[in-house]
């Protein structure tokens, strides 16, 4: 659990973070979003003390991090940045093994962990283990970057716009894997982005920042249905706000038990947007719904997609 209490940071004469208080629950995927200069990166970098607050306290699991040695603090967390920063003179294996080596893990344990992570990030060990960063594509480099951050099994993962420099397809793939990794490991993730779609896709909760102040902190659904002010609305994008809403809710939330429908069923966990696309493609106004075991769970009506 990460608690920010009245945190302020000034880069004279400009205030980057202005009295921000919020709490990230343990195991939560928290996205910090905001326009440029909103202080989101600065706020995140105060968690591993790359930046030191001028005022306020940051506690991790109740402990004030100001009293800890910065290097020890950082070795307990994963850190992923936009430009990856892989060490060019080390192989992928050695890059991933960085923090375990700093912590003095035995060699065998390190090797096993590297194999585990290469598998988790879908990198073929035969091809990638002994490769050098310059031999990798941007997406592959960032996969290694994430693996490196996870190597020492940290409780907290800090990610600073990690996928912003990648092409949309690679970005999408890595986002999906990030979501899967979060689900599997339940690591607390603080994720900075300026892309609302990415935030909506990944976050358990979203913190919107503007000019250093916390504007709104809530679930994607909260943000979409009750945006706190125009800044938030602008971030969402006024035009396809409705479609974004459809992406957030699932079929299971609007399925009805009555009615009949035919054809390929749609899973209850699918987002409403996918259901709408199916309806348009088939030219029908209702779809059969199944649950995770494949048993019939009801019918989704087109009219239920639009709720007053």
């Amino acid at each position, binding site marked *: 659990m990460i608690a920010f209490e009245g945190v302020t940071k000034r880069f004279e004469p400009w205030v980057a973070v202005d009295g921000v208080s919020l709490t990230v629950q343990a195991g939560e995927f928290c996205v910090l979003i905001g326009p440029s200069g909103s202080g989101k990166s600065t706020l995140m970098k105060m968690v*591993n003390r*790359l930046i030191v607050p001028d005022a306020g306290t940051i506690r991790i699991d109740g402990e004030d991090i100001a009293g800890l040695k*910065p*290097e*020890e*603090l*950082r*070795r*307990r967390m994963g*850190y992923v*940045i*936009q*430009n*990856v*920063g*892989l*060490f*060019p*003179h080390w192989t992928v294996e050695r890059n991933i093994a*960085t*923090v375990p080596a*700093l912590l003095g893990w035995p060699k065998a344990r390190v090797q096993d962990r590297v194999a585990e992570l290469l598998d988790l990030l879908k990198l073929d060990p035969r091809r990638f283990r002994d490769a*050098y*960063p*310059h031999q990798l594509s941007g997406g592959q480099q960032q996969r290694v*970057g994430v693996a*490196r*951050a996870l190597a020492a099994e940290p409780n907290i993962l*800090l990610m600073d716009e990690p996928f912003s420099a990648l092409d949309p397809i690679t970005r999408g793939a890595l986002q999906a894997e990030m979501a899967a990794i979060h689900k599997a490991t339940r690591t607390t993730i603080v994720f900075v982005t300026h892309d609302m779609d990415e935030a909506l896709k990944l976050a358990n909760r979203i913190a919107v920042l503007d000019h250093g102040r916390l504007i709104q902190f809530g679930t994607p659904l909260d943000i979409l249905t009750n945006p706190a002010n125009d800044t938030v609305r602008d971030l969402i994008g006024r035009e396809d706000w409705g479609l974004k809403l459809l992406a957030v809710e699932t079929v299971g939330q609007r399925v009805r038990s009555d009615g009949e429908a035919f054809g390929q069923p749609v899973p209850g966990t699918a987002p409403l947007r996918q259901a709408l696309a199916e309806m348009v493609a088939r030219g029908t106004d209702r779809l059969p719904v199944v649950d995770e075991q494949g048993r019939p769970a009801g019918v989704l009506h087109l009219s239920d997609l639009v709720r007053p």
Partner: protein
Amino acid sequence: MAAPRPTILHNRVALLLAAAVAAAALTLPFLSFAPNRLLSGRGIPLAGALAGVVDAPWGWAALLPGAVILAVPFLRPSRAVSAVYSAAGVLFAAGLVWLAGAHAAHLAATSAPAARTSFGAGFWVMEAAALLAAMDGVRRLGLPPAWRIAVGGATAALVAAQLAAGHLDQLSILKEYANQRDVFAAAVLRHGLLVAGALVPTLLIGVPLGVLANRSFHVRRLVFPVLNVIQTIPSIALFGLLMAPLSALAGALPGLGISGVGPVPAVIALTFYSLLPIVRNTVEGLDGVPPAVREAARGMGMTRRQVFLKVEVPLALPVFLSGLRITLVQAVGLAAVAALIGAGGLGAIMFQGLFANALDLVLLGAVPVILLAVAVDAALKLAVSLAVSLTGRRAA
């Protein structure tokens, strides 16, 4: 459609070298024979040298590689041709030296001991062409730098064997060596010590200065203008400038062995000159470390020292070593000038020759300096390529 004209000319560089060899062989004197050390000699063309060599078949054999060099421009390029080209260069280079030594011995048999046989312009041109041909062959084969060193080493070994066998003893330069025999080894050692002696303070001062300049904009702004000015001071002037304060210091503190003349001011001046390349390349090397890499390293929990030693140093190493190469080659050359303030070394031999107007004595001092510089350059190029391969980076 007409068939394309067959290419007879495949290699322009080889053609240039072949032309140089042919022109030198036919028009320039191969050797120069003077009745004594003072008077000018008369030129002896290559043909004359060949005619004079008693074991005629050997003489022609020594020039056979030269024929290969003349033929290569017209041969279709292939790995075999390049290998033969390289070998021909090495053998021709050694063969020319052998021929010069043989003819000098032949002439010495029938002339006064005061007579001198020196290398002529033709020899130098052909020798240079031979060495370039050897290096060009290696380059075309695309072999790593170590091979170039091996080729140079092979040529040097062949010449050294001739030296050891005493085959070259009647050449003027070796006669000068005979007079300098006792002091020559000491001069080479002294020369090396001057360079090594300057290297230590240069690294001790220059590297930390470079690290500081990389980290602090203010230091960088102060350091480079100063070092640039120092670099522009002519070496003799700097030696002279150092003499007065050092002599005063020596007078004040006699026990410390400081002096205004000799190796100490030379080492100090050499250090001053060596600082700029070292500081500049240290800064450039460190500048070349991508900021993302530094940020990731810190963010992952490396201490400042760990970031420096594990990340910055290995990444900056190739560029740094390039700077070290420049520094050392420069120092080898400058140390020769230091002889003018009594520092000794190979420069002393060169200047004795200059004062006595004995060019072969100048050569006796100059050739080892050149060889030393080439050797240092090659060794460090090897080090740079090793560093590059180990760190997976390209040098600046």
